[in-house]
């Protein structure tokens, strides 16, 4: 979706503010927002693409006003409400008002290390040959789905070069909708700065995105 999350090339946000010796968390609640989000992935059963969509589909003014973990929190509340795990009235009341939903699994302390170490690889067997080859010039499609996609607006319609092939990976556009993994070939596509930004671009800059095959078309 063309939401507030699609920030590449936007102006007006001011300068980057590095923070010397920055701690991993800036407040106690951030620790908990982080841990609850990770832990709830298991009973919740959503995947990372669903999580991203829950966050990026926040009203744009909210998305831009919230801090990172506030966005996570809002996304978590949305995911849980959609599945009837925790309803908004319960968050408002600060206590359970409805019976717990039966969940098949929760995160046990003894499993934490293994769950983190395993992660969730998205590489899948390739059933079809890749459509594009290394060095080939391709165009990023001009597409504007209202659902989750990982092709940023700033590359759409522009021509780049296949910089690497990564085999097939879970396709976020399907996965976020609960339509299965639908693995697709994944490429890194590199664009010249001037191709992306016109005369306002830096000729010594190249920018790449990772793009699944359905995002690309031959030229």
């Amino acid at each position, binding site marked *: 979706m063309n939401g507030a999350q*699609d*920030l*590449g*090339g936007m*102006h007006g*946000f001011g300068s*980057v*503010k*590095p*923070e010397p010796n*920055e701690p991993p*968390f*800036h*407040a106690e*609640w951030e*620790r*908990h927002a982080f*841990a*609850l989000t*990770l*832990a*709830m992935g298991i009973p919740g059963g959503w995947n990372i693409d669903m999580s*991203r969509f829950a966050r*990026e589909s926040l009203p744009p003014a909210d998305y*831009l006003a919230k801090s*990172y973990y*506030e966005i996570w*929190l809002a996304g*978590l509340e949305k995911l849980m409400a959609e599945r009837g795990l*925790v309803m908004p009235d*319960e*968050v*408002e009341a600060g*206590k*359970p008002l409805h019976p717990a*939903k039966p*969940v098949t699994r*929760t995160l046990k*302390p003894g499993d*934490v*290390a293994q*769950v*983190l170490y395993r*992660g969730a690889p*998205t*590489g899948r067997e390739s059933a079809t040959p890749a459509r594009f080859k290394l060095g080939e010039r391709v165009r990023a499609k001009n597409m504007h789905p209202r659902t989750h996609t*990982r092709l940023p607006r*700033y590359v759409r319609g522009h021509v780049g070069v296949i910089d690497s092939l*990564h085999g097939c*990976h879970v396709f*976020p556009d399907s996965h976020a909708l609960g339509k299965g993994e639908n693995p697709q070939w994944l490429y*890194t596509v*590199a664009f010249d700065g001037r191709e992306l930004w016109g005369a306002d671009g830096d000729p*010594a*800059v*190249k*920018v*790449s995105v*990772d*793009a699944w095959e359905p995002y690309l078309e031959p030229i």
Partner: protein
Amino acid sequence: MSHDHHDHSDLSETELRVRALQTILMEKGYVEPAALDLLIETYEKKIGPRNGARVVAKAWCDPEYKKWLLTNANAAIASVGYAGRQGEHMMVLENTPKRHNMVVCTLCSCYPWPVLGLPPVWYKSAPYRSRAVADPRGVLREFGVELPKDMEIRVWDSTSEIRYLVLPMRPTGTDGWSEEHLADLVTRDSMIGTGLPKRPDEIAK
């Protein structure tokens, strides 16, 4: 929980909201407090940029390892003990005198957790995400980094589950240094590409 805007700042309201959520989730049996504590401890104490620094220092010392790292990052990084969530598909990007690499995630805040820990606030912020792809040179300037005008800047937007780690150039004047000592030169920002490693004179021997 109280929603009285007159009694609490936004911050404490968020605090109360998180506390309430945690209570609800525990009472419903969805989360176990000990697991939550372990998650926090892992990313607050165990997994951080020191991991990546060790990988970089090793690559600086061992040409074979470096080759392996650049061609099969996952295996090379796992051999040092780092792997997993948000680093399932790693690629390592070598800086050279001709090319400087810089990593961003414009769409969210993808970041290689196993080697760098959790991302800093600026990496997740709108200024960095919006400008890194359109004006990387301007962004680098804000980090105090001025690159030669003809050095290519290659920005990697992390739009898939591939996670990028920059392999900075080894600082001069470090001949014969140990890996552990070299790792002290490797800053987090130098592995994102918004900084350079420290010079030998910037750290205590």
